[in-house]
């Protein structure tokens, strides 16, 4: 997961504030208390969100949480039941979809079955009234981008699922809209092609300044590409932040659990002073000692969250570690560059620990049933009170 972390856009004081932290910045799209109901089912519940020009905004959330519905409202296929959607300060709701500077790539692709791949891509360009030469040029460029030059004259039913997805992507990109809505654009692509396309998307965004709103189920994708991530659940925003914030400072168990792997340990605060908490989590085991800004008086039930890669494993107790316990290796998962250890710690609690493989597998340091020490320092974890 370490490799997946984006270069933090909020890094230091060198650059100007990112637009979402600048109170004076005018958002490109503003959703104001938007609610969408289908009958008596609420798909989007009182959602407010600002997205700024040039952002690469990722929507993350479990199936059915309302990601597509949110996109369809921005594209103009659904009207909000309540609330307003503003584009550059103007009400977008009465504007029909064909007049919005927005293009959407459909989750179902929605390719025109009676048109060839090239004609599908050219469809929006023709409607925009571009000269023929320019249309041909743009189509060729798009075909090159999605590596489908040899399939220009095929119909959608004559190409594979992944190829169809690429045509849908090319068709949405071709018009170069101000805002591109991509509903799981890369889900059907193989790893290599996906990486290449991700790179191209970022490149397009930098060249044309397009604002991307992208739905993805791939956390790594969201982490590497997005300027900000919104985690949704049941039609609500649970947390909106940079990839780094979402990963390092999830605001709830839900977000911590949803993004990446995490060990969640429940316990009770037994001491709190100077930003340092002591959490009792198992009988006969040393408590967790951690630094935290969270206001948790003694006696509060809290959840302690720690990522697997922040825990170290060793044959002996590391010196000076704030938190260290002994445990037994129950299982080892080999992930190529990483190994995941499942360690049974005090009171039978299982911990997931990830560490890089510095040696070949045959000479691995530990194996099944070994007794090991696992440890982390005071700043490695996070206290969640939710």
């Amino acid at each position, binding site marked *: 997961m370490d490799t997946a972390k984006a270069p933090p856009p909020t890094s230091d004081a060198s650059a100007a504030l990112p637009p979402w932290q600048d109170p004076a910045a005018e958002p490109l799209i503003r959703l104001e208390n938007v609610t969408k109901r289908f009958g008596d089912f609420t798909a989007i519940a009182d959602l407010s969100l600002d997205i700024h020009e040039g952002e690469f905004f990722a929507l993350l959330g479990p199936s059915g949480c309302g990601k597509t519905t949110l996109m369809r409202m921005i*594209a*103009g*296929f659904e009207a909000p039941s309540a609330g307003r959607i503003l584009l550059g300060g103007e009400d977008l709701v009465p504007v*029909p*979809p*064909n007049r919005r500077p*927005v*293009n*959407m790539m*459909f989750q*179902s692709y*929605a*390719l*025109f*079955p*009676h048109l060839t791949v090239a004609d599908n891509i050219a*469809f*929006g360009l023709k*409607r*925009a009234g571009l000269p023929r030469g320019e249309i041909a040029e743009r189509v060729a460029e798009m075909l090159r981008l999605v590596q489908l030059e040899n399939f220009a*004259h095929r*119909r959608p039913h*004559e190409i594979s699922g992944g190829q169809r997805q690429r045509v849908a992507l090319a*068709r949405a990109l071709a*018009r170069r809209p101000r805002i591109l809505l991509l509903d799981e654009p890369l889900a059907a692509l193989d790893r290599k092609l996906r990486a290449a396309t991700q790179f191209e998307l970022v490149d397009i965004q930098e060249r044309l300044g397009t604002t991307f709103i992208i739905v993805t189920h791939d956390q790594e994708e969201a982490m590497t590409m997005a300027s900000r991530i919104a985690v949704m659940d049941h039609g609500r925003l649970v947390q909106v932040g940079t990839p780094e914030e979402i990963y390092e400072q999830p605001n709830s168990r839900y977000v911590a659990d949803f993004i990446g792997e995490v060990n969640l340990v429940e316990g009770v605060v037994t001491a709190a002073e100077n930003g340092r908490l002591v959490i009792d989590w198992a009988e006969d085991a040393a408590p967790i000692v951690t630094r935290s800004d969270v206001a948790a008086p003694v006696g509060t039930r809290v959840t302690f969250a720690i990522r697997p890669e922040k825990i170290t494993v060793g044959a002996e107790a590391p010196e000076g570690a704030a938190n260290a316990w002994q445990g037994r290796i129950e299982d080892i998962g080999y992930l190529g560059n990483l190994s995941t250890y499942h360690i049974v710690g005090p009171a039978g609690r299982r911990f997931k620990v990830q560490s890089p493989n510095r040696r070949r597998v045959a000479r691995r340091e530990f194996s099944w049933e070994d007794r090991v020490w696992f440890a982390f320092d005071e700043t490695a974890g996070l206290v969640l009170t939710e």
Partner: protein
Amino acid sequence: MSDDDKAGSGFAGRLRRALLIAVPYLWLGLFFLAPFVIVLKISLSDSVLAIPPYTPTFDPSRGWEGIAAMFRAFDFENYVWLSEDDLYWQAYLSSLRIAALSTLLTLLAGYPIAYAMSRAPERWRPILLMLVILPFWTSFLIRVYAWMGILGQNGYLNQFLIWLGLIDTPLVILGTPVAVYIGIVYAYLPFMVLPIFSSLDRLDRSLIEAALDLGCSRLQAFWLVTWPLSRPGIIAGCLLVFIPAVGEFVIPSLLGGSRTLMIGKVLWDEFFANRDWPLASAVAVVLLLILVLPILLFQRHAERQQRRAEE
């Protein structure tokens, strides 16, 4: 191993497969080819005052000799006669014209109906489909008779228009081609609506949304996406209306009066008024050829397009 593989191996499997394939061919042969051969045979015969009213007849008791004699007696006299009399050509042409125009009118009436049905809420659709099929529950003949009551000089339509004050004297509709068009459009509307509905019903709504998203107005989206994708339904509907309309007999004879010339009426007269079965059969065979030709041409065209798409 799937059933398919089992069926393919061994003699029993091959036999079973051959039988399976043979059934539809047998059906076609028995109910389509055999009647056609009989009609073709009669059209090559001569008319006589007898039962049946033509000669030669097929006499199996004389064996091969009888068959040979029958073939020697065949000639194309009736076809020559057909081609020399203007009446027949005019009847064919007029039938084609009336059928073509009424197919167009049926399409104009049927497409919006099918479109509205496909856009109706899901739970309404079975009821709407039922309504389209409902007329089939009463006899075709009775329904055409009912139109005589509606379109006549003292019919409901004229009474209604006079009551509205739109006209003073009754319109003459019954006994004119207009009545024939009304009758054909009415009678064949379901054959147009159903195939178009089925192709529109299958159409993925998100395609229309994609078209709007890519800058189409609603009208453009209809013309560039909905219309071409419903074309198979349109073509099927048009063929289903056009082909029977060309040979239509009941509607022109009940609603069209003596002024409407259609080949179906000519056929009827030859069969029953003149009792000239051979000539009537020749009329029928030529009608078949006239109809088969455009269908074959259309199929060839469709196949070629398909192949071009696959290249």
